[in-house]
Structures are given as C-alpha cells and as structure tokens.
C-alpha cells in the first residue's frame, strides 16, 4: 500500500504513487488525468484511476461544487485501487484545494497554481482566510508556481486569445508532472497533433505548454520541493496492452458475447449517469454490426431488447438503479416468456435520484429480489474495469444457454475507472453458439432441454414454428395459456430449478487470497475488489490469518460457497450499501456473517478494510 511504503516526500524511489489532479471543471482535469494515465501505462506501470466528476454539467467557475478531480495510483507492482490518500495533490484553483486538501496524506506534496489564487477565487471557494495561511499546510510539501503566468509566457508567441491561451494551463501542468515521474511526452504530443489537426496554432500552443512545463522541472531548481521521483521499473507480463474503462470493457464484452453466441447484438437503452458511457461506446460500433436503439425511456429500452430477443438476437439493455426500477415489470415478462436478455445496471448512489455521479452497491436486493411474483433470474457482478469484459461474456452465456434475463451489476466507479489491460487471446474463449430451432416436428415453444431446462428458441421467420407466447402462465406440456393450479406449481418450480441449476455450470468459488479455511474471511463483490485485496494482503503480510473471497456470481451462489464460508471462524462482508449481500448470505446459509457497510458515495479505503478485519479478529 502506498501510504505505508512512501512515508517521506523526499524519497526518490517509490513502489507506487497516488496523484490527484484537481481544478475547475473547465480546467481540463479529466484530460490531464487520462493523458498521464496513458503515458504511465505506456511506460509499463500498472495503474488504477478514479475520475471524480462534479454533478453539474458546468457549475459556475471557481465554486467548490464545480471542482473536478482525477486520481491515479500507479507503480511497478500490482495496483488494485486508485489509492486511499494522494501522495501528490495538484490544485489548480482555491476551490480544488478546499475540496481535496483533507485527502492529501501527511507529508505529501501539494502543487498549486498561485496565479489562480486571486482574492476573488479564494472568496468563491468559501475561504475566510487565505488558504495557504492554514496551519495544516505546515506538514505538507508545498510547491507554489504561477502556472497561469508560466503558461501564458510559454504560448504568448503563438498569438492566441487570452482565453485560448489559458486553456493550455492543464497541458503545462501535465508536462511538469510527466517530468516529475520520468514519463514520456510522446503520446501526449501525438494526441495533441491529431486532436487539433485542423487548428495548427492550437497544436503549437499546446505543444509549447507541454514542453515548457517539462522544461520547467528540468531546468528550475526549487530545492527539495520540486524533484524527480524514480519508481522501480515494472516488469509486467509480456503481451499486447491497452488501457480500458469498465464501460468500454462492458460494451466490448457484450459484443464478444454476441460473437461467441453467434447472435446479433441489439442494444436498447436510455441515457442515465453513470451508465450512458456503455451506450456511447456501442453507438460508435455500428460498423461492427451492432443495432443500437436510443429509446424514449427505460421501459421502451428493455422492451425493445425483449422484442429483439424474441426475434432471435442477443438483447441488451443498460441503465442505472432508477432506470432499472422502471424496467422491473418488463424483466418479469422476460422471465415468464423465458427470453434471453442482459440487463446491465451501473449502480449509483440512491435512493431515488440520490447521488447520480457517485458509486454505490445498493441495488443488489433489487437485482435478486426486486420483482413481483416468484421471478428468479441469475445475477453476476464485475470486480474491476477489465473484468467487465469477462463478466459481460458470462452474462451473455447464461442468458442464451438458459433462456433467461441476466442482471449484470457494475457501478459508477467501475464504469469510469481505467486500468491497463493485457488484451486477451480471444481464441481462448470458448464459444457458446446458439442454434435457433428449425425443426417443426414435435415443437412447442416451452419444450425444455432436459439438462438446462431452457426452452427451445424458435424465431419469427422460421416456417412451421409459428407460435404465440406471452406473460400469462403457460401449460408445461404445450406452451398454451393455462390457469391450471398444478401446472402453475410445476412451471414455478421449473423456473426456479432452471436458475438454481446454473450452480452446476459455474466455477466453484475460489479464495483469491489466503487459505481456504481459517480465522477470518473477507467476502466481497464488485468494485470493492481492489480495496479488499490490498487490505487482506497487508494483513497477511503482518501474519494474520485472513482470506479474501470475491464473488462474481451473486445468484445463484456457487455450490461450494456454503462449505467454504463454514471453514472460517468469522466472515465479514464489506459493501458500499447497508448490508445487502450480508442479508443474502445469512438467509442462504444461516451463518452469522457481519456487514462492513459504507454509504458515502465513496469507495472503500484500504485502511478501512484493514481496520474492519482487525476489529473482527479481536471480537
């Protein structure tokens, strides 16, 4: 963990570093973060990022609620979280300092643009006194630079307007930070040249700013404050790499699921934060043969996907909690009609509109239990941005193999964060091709595969297989409407058995760190993976008997999970909700698992996991 291994700011050689870029949302902070992440990935480091947007599109400049931040944790070793506390905080205006100052670790480096610390801006940020007079800053390594002026000087000769010139501040800063950590400017320069190809003077200005920032570090002697850090050179596995966000990975995974199932991908979606990025990603892929439909609302979105599934495609719909709530009735139809469908829920803070730009894991109950009737369906969840690729494939596999809607849970953090990803060899993925039924002999729409209990899938356009389905109960033996009592029981059982049967078709639950039995298991799911893993790693390094178990399959739960959990004296379940997986595990196994719950819209810190484990071990 970062904070443990880099106690002094003067250390030149580090294991990993956490930088937090912060500024006004108009300052291009996300861009700086992204480009730094790219250079770092190209350098060969592992990394994890956490973009922290404001809720407003563009809040008035200089206000605290308009502050945008981007945190990156990087280094040669395995990086699993965006880091608990920044080692370096870049604050491009007073509001950014105000919002982020507390997070900086003791002794960390604070870089500020004094040019933006005007009286007006300081007031706007809500400071009573000059922020740099704050005693708390005594313990940090403060670097004050007039980045505004330095940038303007650098670009002055290009002849831009002042406004345009100031836009280069972020790139100047990026140049300096790249220097600090010995990263190459090349990918940034390339990007500038492509991006502004039609505006040569903008290219020129940005390149000058980039180089000036870099040169500033190289040529200026600021004492211990501003210095170059050396991280050990990484030795990642060989292979082809890229960085990927969870949203991209999910979109690609869905497309991969379609290819592996030999179906067309149909997306029906309605924009909602933080799920829209999957829609945006797939919208760029029409030339891959994807049919995209931006519907009038969430209900129409899922219904169009159900229609697509009925017509023989891989139907997908993507949304977030409030949108999924609206889809509930239609999900019931898909369960009743036994049509394959993937429903992706990129969870955000609730209840209701809640905290749209913050992440939470509070839709697990909705996913597992949240429908009228006895309406079981499989639920899967992704743990890291890149994992979204594999989980989307798994969701597609289950949906098509078992003729059922599947809910895939992600969250805002997973969707927006990025990590370097070793591009997998796609040939190693087992295809699961669907064969639509063609044979009229003996056909009825609810004929089931004796093993999976999936009904056969006949598609409009097929002669001789014309049939009618719907949401009313169906006769087990003919598929016609049936109000018969015994038949309803039989069909209810069949729907449960089908979903429960998936247990046999999913991997046994593994222990991703630690022993298969012992004192304490920390059981998690979703985006808390990194924090839990790092936490358990630290505990184990201290010789404590703690294991990390991370679920991909939320429903049905893996066959061996009960026995596995019974092998530990204690089980704790950290979740970003009020205890939803906890409820599920307690009901299933009657084990006194205990929740570690946090509902702040922020991810777990590694230290919080460590502390919770310590407590559990003590009690």
């Amino acid at each position, binding site marked *: 963990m970062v904070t443990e291994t880099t106690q002094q700011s003067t250390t030149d050689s580090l294991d990993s570093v956490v930088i937090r870029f912060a500024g006004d949302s108009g300052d291009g902070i996300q861009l700086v973060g992204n480009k730094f992440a790219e250079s770092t990935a190209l350098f060969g480091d592992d990394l994890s990022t956490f973009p922290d947007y404001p809720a407003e599109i563009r809040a008035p400049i200089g206000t605290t609620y308009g502050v945008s931040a981007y945190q990156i944790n990087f280094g040669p070793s395995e990086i699993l979280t965006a880091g608990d506390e920044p080692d370096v905080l870049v604050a491009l205006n007073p509001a950014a300092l105000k919002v982020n100052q507390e997070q900086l670790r003791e002794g960390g480096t604070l870089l500020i643009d004094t040019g933006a610390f005007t009286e007006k801006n300081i007031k706007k940020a809500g400071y009573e006194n000059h922020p740099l007079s704050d005693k708390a800053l005594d313990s940090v390594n403060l670097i004050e630079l007039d980045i505004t002026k330095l940038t303007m000087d650098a670009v002055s000769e290009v002849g831009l307007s002042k406004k345009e010139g100031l836009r280069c501040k972020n790139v100047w800063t990026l140049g300096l930070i790249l220097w600090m950590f010995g990263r190459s400017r090349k990918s940034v320069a390339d990007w500038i040249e492509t991006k502004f190809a039609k505006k040569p003077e903008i290219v020129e200005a940005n390149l000058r700013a980039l180089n000036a920032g870099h040169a500033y570090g190289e040529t200026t002697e600021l004492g211990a404050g501003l210095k170059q850090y050396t991280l050990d050179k990484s030795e990642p596995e060989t*292979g082809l790499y890229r960085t990927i966000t969870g949203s991209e990975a999910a979109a690609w995974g869905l497309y991969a699921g379609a290819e592996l199932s030999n179906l067309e991908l149909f997306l029906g979606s309605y924009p909602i934060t933080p799920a829209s990025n999957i829609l945006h990603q797939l919208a760029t892929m029409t030339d*891959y043969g994807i049919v995209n439909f931006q519907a009038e609302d969430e209900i129409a979105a899922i219904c169009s996907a159900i229609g697509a599934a009925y017509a023989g495609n891989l139907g997908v719909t993507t949304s977030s909690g409030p949108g999924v709530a609206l889809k509930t009735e*239609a999900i019931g139809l898909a369960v009743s009609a036994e049509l394959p469908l993937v429903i992706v829920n990129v969870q955000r803070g609730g209840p209701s509109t809640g905290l749209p730009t913050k992440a939470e894991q509070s839709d697990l109950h909705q996913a597992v239990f949240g429908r009228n009737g006895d309406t079981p369906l499989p639920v899967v969840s992704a743990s890291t941005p890149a994992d979204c690729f594999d989980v989307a494939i798994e969701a597609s596999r289950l949906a098509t193999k078992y003729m059922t809607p599947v809910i895939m849970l992600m969250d805002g953090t997973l969707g927006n964060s990025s990590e370097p990803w070793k591009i997998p060899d796609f040939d190693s993925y087992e295809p699961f091709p669907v064969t639509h039924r063609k044979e009229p002999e003996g056909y009825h729409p609810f004929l089931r595969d004796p093993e999976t209990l999936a009904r056969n899938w006949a598609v409009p356009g097929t002669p001789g297989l014309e049939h*009618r389905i*719907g949401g009313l109960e169906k006769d087990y033996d003919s598929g016609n409407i049936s109000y018969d009592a015994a038949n309803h029981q039989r069909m209810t059982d069949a729907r449960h058995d089908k979903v429960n049967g998936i247990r046999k078709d999913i991997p046994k639950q593994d222990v991703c760190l630690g022993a298969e039995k012992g004192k304490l298991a920390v059981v998690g799911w979703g985006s808390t993976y990194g924090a839990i893993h790092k936490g358990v790693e630290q505990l184990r390094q201290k010789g404590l008997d703690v294991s990390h178990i991370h679920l991909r399959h939320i429903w049905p739960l893996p066959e061996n999970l009960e026995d596995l959990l019974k092998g530990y004296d204690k089980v704790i379940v950290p979740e970003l909700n009020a205890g939803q997986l906890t409820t599920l595990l307690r009901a299933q196994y009657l084990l006194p698992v205990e929740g570690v719950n946090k509902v702040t819209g922020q991810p777990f810190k590694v230290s919080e996991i460590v502390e919770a484990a310590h407590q559990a071990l003590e009690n």
Partner: protein
Amino acid sequence: MNMISPPEELNAKDFASDQEVRWCPGCGDYAILKTMQKTLPEIGARPENTVFVSGIGCSSRFPYYMSTYGFHTIHGRAPAIASGVKLSNPELDVWIITGDGDGLSIGGNHMLHVLRRNVNVQVLLFNNEIYGLTKGQYSPTSKPGLRTPSSPLGSIDSPISPCAFALGANARFVARAIDIAHKPLSSVLKRAHAHKGASFVEIFQNCVVFNDQTFSDFTDKKTGADNQIHVEHGTPLTWGKDNQYGLLIKPGTLELQKVTIGEDGVTESDILVHDETNRTMATMLAAMEGPDFPVALGVLFCDPGTPYEEAVRAVPKAPGKNVKQLLASGKTWTVD
C-alpha cells in the same frame, strides 16, 4: 430471413390458430379477427413472416387466434417490443394490436414514439372507449358522462381523439375503420400494410358488455350512412345514402362546412377533394364528429418517409469487423 415460400395459395383458415376464441359472444373483436384472417392471404402474407405483437386487454388477446408468430406482452408496451422485433429483422411483417387503454392510456408514450420514428409496423388500435378486460372502467377515449365502476357519477375526463393524437405525433399514415364493416376495414388494412413506415389505424370496436352501441350513431347499418364519410384520395368528400352531402372549407376561414349538393347552388364540383397527403386536411377530417358532421373513415392521411429500421441499419457490418479486430483497435502497446 427472406423465406422462399412454396407457391401454394393460402386462405383465411391458414391464418387461424387452433386456440378457441375467448371473447364475449357478440364482441366486435370477432369481426376484426375474421377480416384479418381473410385479408392476409389476399396481400400474400406468409404466416412464418408475420408477427402480431400486443399489449394487455381483450383486444390484445388477438395474437393467440392467429396462426402466425405472436407475442402477447405487457400493458402498453407493444409498440416498444414491436420496434425491437422490426429493427432486429426488417423482413418481418409486424402488426401491433392494442386497445384504447393499452395504446393511449398506459401506452401513450410508446405510441407517440413509434409513430414519430416511423418504424415500419402497422398499429391497429381497437377503440371501444372502455377498459374491457378489467371489467369496464372508462378510458381516455370514453365519452364524457359515461358511468362506469370507476366513474359512478359519469366520467369527467375530456377524451382524446386517437387520430388527432397520431397526427400530432407526426404519424405518416392515419386511417379509420369499423369492426363489422368487412370491406372497408380490409381495404384499410391493405393500405396500412402497403405503407412503408408506421401506419396507424383506429378501428371502432363494439364492446357488447361494457359499452354497447357507443358508436351506433354512425355504425348502425340502417341510419349510419348519413353519419359516416369514406374518404378517398383525389375524390370529392361526399357522403350520405345518395351521396347527397359534401364538405367545403367555409370561405375565408379554416373551418369545414357541411353542404347538401343541389341546395343553395352547390354542385359536386364545389366539393372539397380529399388530399391524403395534406396533414391539415387530415386533422380537420379526424376532428369531425356528430351530430353536425359525419365521422371520417378510410385513409385520412398518407405521406410516406424513410422507415426507421432502414435508417438504423444504414451502416452495414464492415468486413473484418469482429472482436479480435476490436481488441486490437485504438491505442495499444506491447510489452516484451
């Protein structure tokens, strides 16, 4: 999916399923079903390429009685589900069956959007001015004052006109017919089917149990003729048993006027000629109601545009585009 079908001729029976029809005896739905089963062979439809998608309601049971593909979905959502079907496989003939409650109460939004997007489906709205299946509550098309279990003192809602709504929603094909009038209904169905893009058809359907005779003013076999007008593109807007009535634009205004040919010097050549491509005219015709005006039947409006599914599918899959290509696209680097 373009099935090469054997050339045998189909007939109405080939479009009837083996399920017993379960509407109330005397329900107008029977007549519509019959007409549909007779019409489909006439337009060369194939059961395997035909899909009926419905919501929930008495009317929405329709798909069960057709031997085609059918999907009886959930209340109000048929247009959205049908859009998914059509976008997925544009070769299919997709019919939406809905009611005044299904299509205009809970489902009004999807109706609006399927029409404005111009998805190439046929929407048949069985308007009986009542919620039949749930035992007779008033609907958004019920006449004011209608007493029902949920409006024991008479409904106070001002109703909506399905065709006016469809025209406001930018629909490009709007037509009307009566359940039991086989020939005009059949020809409207044929026109709707032939129209590329969303076709909206309001069918006046009698619910014998909960709202009997609500349309009898103009549907009655004896007296109805004077109260209905069959509009036809390029033909003067006349009606009545002896075609004695006609429509004019009241000079200097934007209002319709009913005239009697032969009276006040009005001759047939004075009568307004129906132009089905004129949305204003269609809107005025749709708004006509008794007792002063006849109810307009037939194709009120038809002005084709690009069907949505064609636009959606305008970008074909590029050769070589697959997951491997995708994984390797964009910015990557190699560690070796």
